[in-house]
């Protein structure tokens, strides 16, 4: 489904991502942990086509990432630190805008359904700047999933969410797994990060320093491994 080979991203003299190789199958859920500045967001940006790799390649279903290939972008949905939303527009208008950009049909039915799925049916006509952080995060999720992407990229989606909002997010992510969508999530939240993952990885100083099948590690074992890897990395 997703194949990255020798991914490198440099910002001047700083190497944010340093030679990452990654292969993800359909329905896999990879959670990437790592300390701040490990290059996790840059890795996600390159997988999503938001950042051009300095070197290396990314392919989705065998199609190499091509910045000019607009069809390729239909297969990707991303939730970033920021919501990619227009604060002055309503929740409904934001989704309508993105839905029309993606050329989606039947938006009059689709938008209420997606808002209901993230628990915002009664906030459709609220301007985004009047929504709480948790609501905006849920709306960002609805925006990212509006076009039913095959590859979903999540950058710290649980940050600042209250328990109710986190539960909605967890439920939506479970549904993605049921529908065989491939997910890559970057997070510091061990509980949520391990809950749905089929694979886990630790990124440090741009490299994927450790990877494992999620079923092979429990929380305590992973925590021990995380400290071992992060503190022992040269």
């Amino acid at each position: 489904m997703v194949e990255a080979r020798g991914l490198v991203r440099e910002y001047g003299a700083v190497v944010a991502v340093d030679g990452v190789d990654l292969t993800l199958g359909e329905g896999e859920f990879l959670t990437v942990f790592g300390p701040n500045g490990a290059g996790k967001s840059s890795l996600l940006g390159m997988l999503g086509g938001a950042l051009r790799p300095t070197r290396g390649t990314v392919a989705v279903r065998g199609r190499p990432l091509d910045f000019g290939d607009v069809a390729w972008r239909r297969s990707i949905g991303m939730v970033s630190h920021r919501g990619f939303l227009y604060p002055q527009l309503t929740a409904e208008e934001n989704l309508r805008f993105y839905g029309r950009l993606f050329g989606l049909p039947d938006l009059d039915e689709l938008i209420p359904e997606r808002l209901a799925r993230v628990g915002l049916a009664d906030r459709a006509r609220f301007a985004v700047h009047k929504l709480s952080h948790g609501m905006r995060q849920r709306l960002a999720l609805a925006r990212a999933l509006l076009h039913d992407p095959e590859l979903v990229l999540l950058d710290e989606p649980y940050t600042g969410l209250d328990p109710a909002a986190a539960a909605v997010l967890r439920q939506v992510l479970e549904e993605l797994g049921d529908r065989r969508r491939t997910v890559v999530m970057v997070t510091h939240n061990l509980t949520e990060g391990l809950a749905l993952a089929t694979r886990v990885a630790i990124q440090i100083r741009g490299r994927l320093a450790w990877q494992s099948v999620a079923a092979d590690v429990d929380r305590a074992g992973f925590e021990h491994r995380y400290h071992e890897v992060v503190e022992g990395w040269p």
Partner: protein
Amino acid sequence: MRQVGVIVWKDLLLELRTRERFAAMGSFAVLAGVLFNFSIDASLVRPQDVAAGLIWMTIVFDGLLGLGRTFHLEGEDGAFQGVLMSPAPKDAIFLGKAISNFVLLYAVALLVLGVFMLFFGLEIGSSPLALLLALGLGVLGFVALATLFAAVSSGTRMGETMLPILVFPLLVPMVIYGAGATGRLLAGRPVAEVAGNLRVLAAFALVALAAGAGLFRFVVED
């Protein structure tokens, strides 16, 4: 073309909600007209003789005031990155933003014209449609350049301060031929006398739009 329309719809809806740019540009247009009115000694120079140049310089300064903020609202929640990650081609995004900027600046240009007609005692002339066409073509070329360079300057630390430095040198043809056509039409000269000016303004607008559409992706891709 559908995605161009979507961008225009969103930009105009945002402007309608905030009225952020139109309020600033409209106020500037009125204030500039008032100040220019007081700055000219009517016993030495006839206001009609200098009005066309002042109209165009007001449009240019007013345009830079508003168009410099083209990408301001896009950056508030990273929304523009969401647009760039959508399947909308970059040239369609550029054209959408240029068209919405055109609607905004053309409305302001009409206001500038009205303000100067009021304060300078100008008459519309015998060819109002040609006058509107000259304004429209000049504004179109201007917004094409300003939209492209607003994208460039939004990615720099200097931001909006950079925009006039980047754009002014490229506006020389637009100001020369726009002011030339406007002055003659306001003076009641026949349209045939400004046909050449209108052709240059149209060519300038087309080249600026084509260049902007072609270069935009190099500006916005990271």
